[in-house]
């Protein structure tokens, strides 16, 4: 019994180490990535325990009770144990409720709205992305962000369902074709706060047709100054173009 417990703990330690030490997730590059990664790590620790419990008990039973050749006898006529049933109903329930509560807390955290944010309209169509910056009055096919700013993404699709995902930011949300004024009440706004400068890639994460695999856009998180410089070089947004995609007038910015 002690040896079984020890084996469970050892296997638990090994699997937890294997899962936590190498960095299996994408580089963290947003404020939201930290609580999500923390939740994932906690879940991994608990899951490794469940996994080692099952594997050790299974392995022990297979070794200890395997039939000797020619053994035609039956096992013991044990029908169950009410005490064990209660234990392995109550404890898993408590564990999953704990994970649920922790998840709820993390969800509220990653969706909390900062006092200041920068709206960006993301428009998806087969098979390209477009980004409109209503406050700066520009439109671009690249997503540039001043580091540390919370983005207030407003998502629209023009044809089929697409999905916005920058793996390093963790945040993902589908873009759904909507009629004017969103009568079906699609929840098409999402917040993310990129906090690490660098070059990333936006990928489409919802099957949208033959170009789904290559529907990507460059994402650049840069300093405030570099961002302002970049804005100055972008195409201006058409008047009243919030969320619409008529396409900017041809003509270079100043």
């Amino acid at each position, binding site marked *: 019994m002690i040896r079984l417990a020890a084996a469970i703990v050892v296997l638990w330690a090994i699997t937890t180490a294997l899962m936590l030490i190498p960095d299996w997730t994408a580089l963290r590059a947003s404020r939201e990535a930290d609580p999500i990664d923390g*939740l994932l790590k906690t879940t991994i620790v608990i899951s490794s325990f469940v996994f080692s419990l099952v594997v050790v*008990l299974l392995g022990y039973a297979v070794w200890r009770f*395997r039939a000797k050749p020619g053994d035609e006898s*039956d096992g013991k006529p044990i029908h169950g144990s009410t005490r064990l049933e209660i234990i392995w109903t109550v404890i898993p329930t408590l564990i999953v409720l704990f994970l649920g509560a922790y998840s709820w807390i993390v*969800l509220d955290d990653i969706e909390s709205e900062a006092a200041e944010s920068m709206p960006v309209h993301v428009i998806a169509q087969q098979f390209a992305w477009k980004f409109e910056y209503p406050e700066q009055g520009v439109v671009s096919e690249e997503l540039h962000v001043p580091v540390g700013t919370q983005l207030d993404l407003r998502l629209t699709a023009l044809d089929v369902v697409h999905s916005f995902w920058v*793996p390093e930011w963790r945040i993902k949300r589908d873009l759904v074709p*909507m009629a004017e004024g969103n009568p079906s009440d699609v929840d098409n706004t999402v917040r993310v706060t990129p906090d690490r400068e660098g070059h990333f890639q936006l*990928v489409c994460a919802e*099957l949208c047709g033959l170009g789904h695999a*290559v529907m990507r856009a460059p994402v650049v998180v840069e300093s405030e100054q570099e961002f302002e410089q970049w804005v100055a070089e972008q195409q201006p947004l058409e008047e009243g173009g919030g969320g619409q995609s008529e396409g900017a007038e041809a003509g270079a910015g100043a």
Partner: protein
Amino acid sequence: MLAALKRPGLARGWFGFLVGGGLGFGLVVALRAISGLEIFQTEPTGYPHVVVPAITAPLGFLAGIGCFDYWIRWAIGRPTVPEDHSQHGAYSWKDYFRFNTDHKVIGIQYIVTTFFFFFLGGLAAFAVRAELAAPGTQIVDGQFFNGLFSTHAAFMLFLFIIPIFAGIGNYVLPLMIGAPDMAFPRLNALSFWMLPMAGLIFIASFFVPGGTFDAGWTGYAPLATGAPLGQSFFNLGVQFAGASSIMAALNFIVTIITMRAPGMTFWRMPLLAWANLSTSLLIVAATPFIAGAQFMVLFDRVLHTNFFQAAFGGDVLSYQHIFWFYSHPAVYIMILPGFGIISEVVSTHARKPIFGYRLMALALIGIVVLSYTVWAHHMFVSGMFSWLRVPMMITTILIAVPTGIKIFNWLGTLFDSVLHLKSTAMLFSLAFIVTFTIGGISGVMLGMVPIDIHVSDTYFVVAHFHFVLFGGSVFTVFAGIYHWFPKMTGRMYDERLGRIHFWMTWIGLLGTFIPMHWLGLQGMPRRVADYAAEFGDWNLVVTIFSFVLGLAQLVFVYNMVVSWKWGPKAGPNPWRAKTIEWLVSSPPPVFNFDRIPRVVGGPYEFGVPGARHAILEEDEGAEIKPAQPAVAGAAGAGEAAT
């Protein structure tokens, strides 16, 4: 030749196919001509002159092969013979290729047909993995690739995993509950024959303009509503597969509730019966929803309704709600019978009662009820009402509790047992316990919204469902096939080949699907023909192991075919099991029992000297009087007029 066309059979079936197709085609052409419309409308989403025959031709086949003969004769007032067993039983291989009312024949028909689709789906997977072995597009273009994974999933889910359990259950269950057949043998045969029709429709989609359906097995609108003709074939194929499933489930429910042998109370019922009953309850209530969703897409396509057209007032997300309201219970449909099989195999090959039998049965019911409350966990990032996410998360992770109860009870069954590890069925069952735990763990992770936000629609999800579908469901299917092979064929399979199949499959599975967890976490989305270069190494590893996994199945097929023909003969009970199917010969007599058996104890009374589950001979123990059949229908097959 003319004689062959007059009697029910394959020849008349194909004739009916042509007639039905012709009538459908003619109807469309005539109506369009009369209305002054262009006769052959070839908008990619339209082609009514193809879509309507795609419905009427399979119906014509079903009529021709004889599915409706008896009912039509009865309905129009012609004389019928109540004890008409002319369509019953297999006396030669030809009996497997016609309308046959014997549940044992239908069971074999289901098993062989579904395994054919397993191999077709597997070929598609080979092609997918070959393309994904390296970044870039080497073998197929983006559109065909999308078609490959769509058909891979459609074949595997609708034409293999759901119906194979109907097939195994069909064969085993009436024997196991001491019944001479299912409650509705003709309906049973109709359920089977709808499957090859569904398969034909899916396969035909490869040959139509625009190619096969490529919007995934999930077929989300509006991608599906605007897709070419192949998508309509998906909509229709799902209807036939769904109808087959519903009819079979109805049959199981009525059979299990009304046709158990005398003495078999619910608490003396083997867990496979509990599992099939639970699954059937899921099927009859949930499947109409996917039928509805596919009809709505078809109508948007062909009839220009606007269910899912946002610009015309449609609600795009409603497709997902309706679809997943079925498709979540569907995944329990795909595993619950497997849970039943595992219980039968483990108790028999460990020579022990199932630990916690009653809670095992109640856990099945708990899973049935809970499974209707979780569908929106497939939609956490869809843009649906944000308040729905937390309640759906709670119900989703709570389902881990009854499932965990089952895992622990199987573990409990192994302690103080006498484990026979030589049996391949037992090997698959033990491995199932591990792989299903892994799949369950990733499932709980996916149920947690913030984690799902990151890994939804990535290879993490692909890893999860292949662990629970292959490492889960398919392993239970293999366990069941190996366990009941001697009963069905009267011969033993080769255990050494079984072990080779097991180890190759087990190693192939782990190597193929474990790395996918990391790929998803790292940033590789799913359903992509190409991916960022950094994912190349793990994808190559996955592809290599997937080829091992695929090749392993050839060992299985070889073993099954060769053993069926030339294996050593098996007695009635090679596993010394307790349930009723093992009391009769292998294979069983055509009408199962000379006398209805009488159940006198629980189904897993190993270790209790002299304990019996059921008694066949009435003179075993003078005090036991021959029991009257519990219900009139038990006395003869085909009695029910439906």
